[in-house]
């Protein structure tokens, strides 16, 4: 319906932990209560943070809702940054190269593991 609807959905994730559980358990059912266009639905369903950015959703809210859904730890934060950069993880934080390479590897392993869970129907949300 609008960027405002998406911001409302994301803000509610940050405010109400029960909503996080409901979304992660059954995102399609959860989002059916909101007036979203097909593109918007896909964006939120997959938590496509770079699409949020292009659509005009607040970056602050994108980041906070991401951590509300998936946890506030280095792995999820770097995964977020990688997605914001469309699959390329930049070393913006100027980590020493070996440490950064380990982080890149860990983020890739996490993504692969989540993909496997999804293939076997053990996880409904990709992230």
């Amino acid at each position: 319906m609008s960027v405002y609807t998406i911001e409302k959905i994301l803000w509610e994730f940050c405010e109400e932990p029960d909503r996080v559980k409901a979304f992660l358990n059954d995102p399609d059912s959860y989002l059916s209560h909101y007036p979203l266009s097909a593109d918007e639905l896909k964006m939120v369903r997959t938590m496509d943070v770079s699409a949020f950015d292009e659509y005009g959703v607040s970056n602050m809210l994108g980041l906070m809702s991401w951590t509300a859904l998936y946890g506030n730890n280095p792995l999820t934060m770097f995964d977020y940054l990688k997605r914001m950069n469309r699959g390329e993880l930049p070393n913006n934080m100027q980590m020493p190269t070996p440490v950064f390479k380990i982080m890149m590897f860990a983020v890739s392993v996490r993504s692969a593991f989540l993909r496997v869970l999804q293939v076997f129907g053990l996880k409904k949300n990709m992230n």
Partner: protein
Amino acid sequence: MAKLTAAFCVPHIPLIASQPNIAPKKKVDIVMNGFAHIRDRMTELKIDTAVVIGDDHYTVFGPHCLPHMLIGIGDVFGPYENWLGHERAPIANNQPLAQHIMGYGFDHGFDWAVAKSLTVDHSTFVPYLKIIKDLEGVKMVPVYIAAGVEPLIKTRRCVQIGEMIHDAIADYDSSERVAIIGTGGLSHWVGAANMGKVNEAFDHNILDMIKRRDIEGLLALKDDDVLNEAGNGALEYRNWLVALGAVTRYTYEMDLICYEPIHSWVTGTAMIELKFAN
């Protein structure tokens, strides 16, 4: 009458409260020593209350209500965010002074949004934690302006708010000595693709303009340029403009306490004091 006696601008990076040591120790020490220096100055200047200027990060306020300027006149708690790793607790608010600033604003064309009960986010909690909390008897008056979430408050209005806060303090029938603390980072990209980058040239340009008392230069900055060069977080220089506005009645001297580009804290990190005679 009460007196505005000191003015500072400081960072409010949440990692200062939650995980400071992810930054290099040398840089952490410089910033923590900066906070200690400000605590010493607050003691030396016998400050009773600090008016702390913060901005929300889509945390305290949601899409249903985004105030342009808000003052906490009653109960104050903090922090809002549990991930800061600090238990939420009451914060001593100077309620009579807050209520006076609110009323003075109403009488002079500033339509504050008002919180009778406010739980502050890291923007005012971090300065409280690192400066005010351990200073016996010192209270805080929390002020929020729309510097983080659009629609943003106009920069000139920020200076006017600072001037009004100065005048309200001068109009307050008390012998209290008051500080104003503008908070926030310089260049930083919060949740954006460039998160972690720091634009040192931009940061030094801002500091140079403050040093030269070039308020009009700061007001001439275009939001789109700030956003492109220094990130969405840099728009928080509005918080600093409020502190600068509070001292425009004086010929202040800027004391640069520290500046560090801290990539792991994702922010250009500066602390200044605006010294003036009152």
